[in-house]
């Protein structure tokens, strides 16, 4: 299944979460969304978002100033 990309770089809380939620809604169950963000708060926020919504956080890594998340739509 192809991976969708959401570029949330330069956006501040809560925009990366709101945009991710919107993008996830358009994915089929099992589909994956890659998110790029520069908001350091997004590391904790995407963990909390996934724990609460039941979606799976497959990856969370940092590449310089960019945070890179991979979420699988499970819920």
């Amino acid at each position, binding site marked *: 299944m192809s991976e969708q990309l959401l570029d949330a770089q330069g956006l501040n809380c*809560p*925009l990366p*979460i*709101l945009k*991710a*939620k919107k993008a996830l809604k358009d994915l089929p169950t099992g589909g994956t969304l890659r998110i790029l963000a520069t908001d350091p708060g997004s590391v904790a926020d995407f963990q909390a978002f996934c724990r609460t919504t039941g979606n799976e956080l497959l990856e969370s890594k940092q590449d310089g100033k960019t945070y890179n998340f991979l979420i699988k739509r499970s*819920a």
Partner: protein
Amino acid sequence: MSAGETANAKSMSIIVTKGSLDWAYPPFILATTAAAMGVDVTMFFTFYGLPLLLKKLDLQVTPLGNPAMKMPMMGMHMAMPNLVGMLPGVTAGATKMMKNLIAKKGVASIEDLREAAIESDVKMIACQMTMDLFEYKMEDMIEGPTLGGAATYMENALKADINLYI
């Protein structure tokens, strides 16, 4: 999946009482984020929070009486003495400065957050008493909010997992 689709969704109510540019943020940030996390959200707009439902927003922020408002400037943080804050034009200047910062830092505008709240089915209630008190009409307001009073809010709050007063 919107919040309403989940039978066991948690719920939150927020009483919105303040309508300045800074105080408009917490209720809309929490409402939109909660909705994104599957929470059923109800916002009750009363007193100075009510104008946040007006079609055209003209939000302002003032440093007057707020010693905690220190704006970043040339690597420092600058507070404004009350005596300066009361001068004509200072509120407009502070508002402009805040809006520039908001745009520069990638923070959403209140208009955008409000739009996102409506899109994610956040329920909005306009306080009927405040509408009457300050002489607002429903046609002055955006599409979406319903009219209600304290009992309408209480019915929501009694069922809600989280109740906030902002």
